[in-house]
């Protein structure tokens, strides 16, 4: 009997999701025994042409991590969608855009200028990388940037999402066990390997009624280990983040930054945090409110740390520029 085929691929990724898969420890041996691993550039020598040569739908399960930043990322998303029965957006980059998604708060133009002109260590007058370059021997190509970073779901139809930066090993084990035991999976579109509440649900700190008059940056105070961080005026994204990680950061005395993405039934993680904080700030005076809010140094980059592309606004708008096609919704 042939083994089901498994593929793992990384787009605009840091490799952390690959390492997370290895962090399942001994379970990796069971996974390797159960599946035929047909594509995994990090660990195996199969090349793109090996995937292209497969019949459509040949791969039973593809775990796709990484955001869609370049034309190559988008092409691989389409290729693997075509060749896979089940395509999973694995990890925060594929699910919500994650850290690479912060590029959507700036522009490609600003990025190039930063790296190739204003970087203090870079020689002046250097060439910017180009899509096609003629060298004496022939032509070389590298992929192009898309106008903005996208999630996998914004690029191809996706069957399931496993959130987290990275997904925690025990959650990966839970999902893979389900698959290997042939248990029925939830309806398409479901989030797997995570909880149905917010991170606060997994946090063991003492909570009291929140009346916040002052916000502190993490280095400004020594957080008390037993009390809710938000109660102490330290911005923590627990209320706007899906449960499932075990509240690891908070247990380590650092605030949650939202890597498991928005909670169930929340489409915009940052907006949820805006509403949550607005509810607990203890002031009714506009000037005082503004003064308190100014103590949060970077609301957008903090509330949308992992979810700019999947947010409702997706990416920076350029007031005064020409209209693009309509937003997708």
């Amino acid at each position, binding site marked *: 009997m042939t083994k089901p085929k498994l593929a793992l691929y990384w787009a605009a990724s*840091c*490799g*952390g999701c690959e390492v997370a898969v*290895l*962090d399942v420890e001994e379970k990796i*041996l069971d996974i390797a025994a159960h599946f035929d*691993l047909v594509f995994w550039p*990090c*660990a*195996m*020598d199969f*090349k*793109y*042409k090996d995937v292209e040569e497969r019949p459509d739908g040949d791969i039973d399960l593809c775990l796709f991590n990484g955001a869609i*930043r*370049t034309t190559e990322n988008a092409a691989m998303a389409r290729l693997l969608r075509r060749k896979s029965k089940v395509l999973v957006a694995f990890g925060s980059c594929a699910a919500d855009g*994650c*850290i*690479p998604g*912060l*590029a959507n*708060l*700036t522009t490609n133009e600003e*990025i190039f200028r*930063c*790296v*190739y002109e*204003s*970087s*203090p*260590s870079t*020689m*002046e007058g250097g*060439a*910017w*990388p*180009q899509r096609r*370059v003629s060298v*004496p*021997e*022939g032509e070389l190509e590298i*992929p*192009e940037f898309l106008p903005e970073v996208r999630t996998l779901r914004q690029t191809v139809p996706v069957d399931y999402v496993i959130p987290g*930066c*990275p997904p925690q090993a025990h959650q990966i084990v839970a999902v893979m066990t389900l698959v290997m035991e042939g248990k029925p999976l939830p309806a398409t579109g479901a989030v797997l390997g995570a909880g149905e509440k917010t991170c606060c649900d997994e946090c063991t700190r003492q909570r009291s009624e929140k009346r916040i008059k002052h916000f502190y*940056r*993490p*280095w400004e105070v020594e*957080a008390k*280990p037993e009390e809710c961080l938000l109660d102490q005026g330290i911005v923590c994204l627990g209320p706007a983040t899906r449960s499932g990680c075990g509240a*690891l950061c908070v*247990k*380590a*005395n*650092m605030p949650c*930054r939202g*890597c498991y993405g928005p909670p169930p039934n929340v489409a915009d993680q940052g907006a949820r945090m805006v509403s949550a904080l607005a509810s607990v700030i203890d002031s009714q005076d506009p000037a005082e409110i503004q003064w308190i809010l100014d103590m949060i*140094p*970077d609301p957008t*980059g903090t509330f949308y740390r992992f979810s700019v592309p999947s947010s409702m606004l997706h990416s920076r708008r350029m007031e005064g520029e020409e209209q693009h096609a309509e937003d997708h919704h």
Partner: protein
Amino acid sequence: MRKITIDPITRLEGHGKITIFLQEDGSLGNCYFQVPELRGFERFCVGRPVEELIRITPRICGVCPEAHHMASAKACDAVYQVDPPRAAKKLRELLYTAFFVGDHTLHFYALGGPDFVMGPDAAPAERNILGVIRKMGLDAGRKVIELRKRAQRTVALIGGKAIHPVTALPGGMAKPLTVAERDEIVNHTDYFVEFAKFTLGVLDAVVLKNPAYMDLIRSDTYTHRFYSMGTVDAQNRVNFYDGMVRVVDPEGQEYVKFAPQDYLEVLSERTEPWTYLKFPFLKKVGWKGFVDGKNSGIYRATPLSRLNAADGMATPLAQAEYERMYATLGGKPVHHTLAMHWARVIEIVYAAERAAELARDEEILSTHIRTSPTAAPREGVGCVEAPRGTLYHHYITDERGIVKAVNLIVGTTNNHASICMSIRKAAEGLIARGSEISDAVLNRIEMAFRAYDPCLACATHAAAGQAALEVRILDSEGHLIAARRRA
């Protein structure tokens, strides 16, 4: 010319491709190593509070997030002009050495190792960690898994999470160790040391006692003579967490020793239009093109380079192995690219021993692990040895500590020029006129970069994109005379 593309390159971290051009007669025309990925950290970190970079920059790389976490923490210490308590630095270094053990182990067994254990000409389906486990036996496989489990666990106990740790702050660490946690870590570090010895045994049995492999290592095809860079402590011994950066020339003489904050006086980076990755080089020696030797500013920062740049190792077992390697390979410095695999194992030994030392230091239990920043933030450089090379984080902030500019020179980036040359030289040596370009030949070309343990997500933290048409006029020394760009 006929074109063969290895796409993607595999058994490394990140994206890359190798394009080989062949002449009519089948001999090599040229060979290009291209990095097709990038994301833009240097730009999108602007506007963020500087302390948040300690948790954002690890996403440059999920294989070595600890390196970025530490370099970033040190840069933030410098930005706020704050010196963490000694106990905090020990905690950071303990996390860091545990990470090094795990990361180098991953490379040896899963990424670079399969070429040696299975053989460079083994079938693609065999040349991977699963093949290695099949060949070495399940017991050995379980040892590797156990090592990684313990290394990740140690990082998580100190850092909160193993992948993308969170506890470093400007001025120290967010939480101290409990006695139970410390005891657990001591147990893990003992395992690290035993495992390091086991790995030395594997290296010996599989590689060092195999004459064919030793010939491969010593061959000219995989040898270049470059400057070597590494961080050293006050006694010029290898240190991963802190010290001065030392560069020795191809003959092993000290060329420069500098404090990380002065890196701009020593290093410069150039660009090429066919890759997103930049090419650092030694500024005062100058860029002479893709050539090696004392007159070329190209340098390497790899485990082998660190050992070349240092006078020794700070722990006994590692020192003994250091001496053995140089004795075997004909003295210092060693320029055989494939010897990086050996140097890497020596670093596993050092990291294990150092972790064991730190875990047993009573100060590791201290609860005095934060110094409060009081000075106005400005600018700072933080530097550590990432497993793949010297890592520099340079931040400039406004008076509130909001980032205005970021410059990064990341581990593998240091080695970009040398990786290109290693790949090209391997292609030259292996592609003979009229012979078939088999999968085995292509794999042996890939082996030329695998020794470096490249981390291309790291290397291409920064971004570029659609570009203008550019005409550059260079003089015979490669200096830019004029440039014209059409938007």
